[in-house]
């Protein structure tokens, strides 16, 4: 079946602009994660959803970052008033309820803030 998809794959924003990044998880997956991967680094956890409930947002770096998953499927990560330090690849991962330790990753969205 189809894997996790993310759009857009690349996004260039001017400093101060708002951006929205989309994640389509694998159909039926309960868990959805967002990670931020800075250049040359490993991914870092941002936030976690179980169905439509955002159970953990401890990794969001500031109140400019907001994530939602209103119907328990597609998720959107929104960054307001983007800053240069927000430049990174944003990875989405989903996981089936049957196995809490499995996460399947999307290709990521590379955000560049000028």
């Amino acid at each position: 079946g189809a894997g996790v998809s993310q759009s857009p794959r690349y996004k260039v924003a001017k400093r101060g602009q708002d951006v929205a990044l989309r994640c389509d998880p694998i159909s039926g997956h309960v868990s959805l994660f967002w990670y931020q991967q800075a250049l040359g680094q490993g991914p870092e956890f941002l936030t976690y959803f179980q169905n439509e409930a955002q159970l953990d947002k401890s990794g969001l770096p500031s109140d400019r970052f907001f994530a939602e998953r209103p119907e328990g499927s597609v998720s959107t990560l929104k960054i307001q008033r983007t800053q240069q330090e927000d430049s990174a690849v944003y990875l989405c991962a989903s996981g089936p309820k049957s196995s809490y330790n499995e996460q399947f990753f999307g290709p990521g969205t590379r955000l560049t803030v000028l």
Partner: protein
Amino acid sequence: AQTVTQSQPEMSVQEAETVTLSCTYDTSENNYYLFWYKQPPSRQMILVIRQEAYKQQNATENRFSVNFQKAAKSFSLKISDSQLGDTAMYFCAFMKHEDYGGATNKLIFGTGTLLAVQP
């Protein structure tokens, strides 16, 4: 807090040879999972191998195997018969084992090892 350390930023191996990537971690937890993920240049992260901490037997997946030393908090990845398609960034990752319904089960990653397989 848990940390994962990969001390080899880059490694190189000849095709068909064997290479070992190192990973150490720090945790006070007793139940957890350890993973090796592969991230090719296309950037799609792919699971290579997984180890449950309560299992003493080292996990193997075809040409990939791990050496899990729980007391030493070490989790190395051995790739046998290296192939050109193994060229990628490899990440070691830790996940705390929590099986209650609202558990986050987030992955904590190391900084990665860039492996280049030479023809």
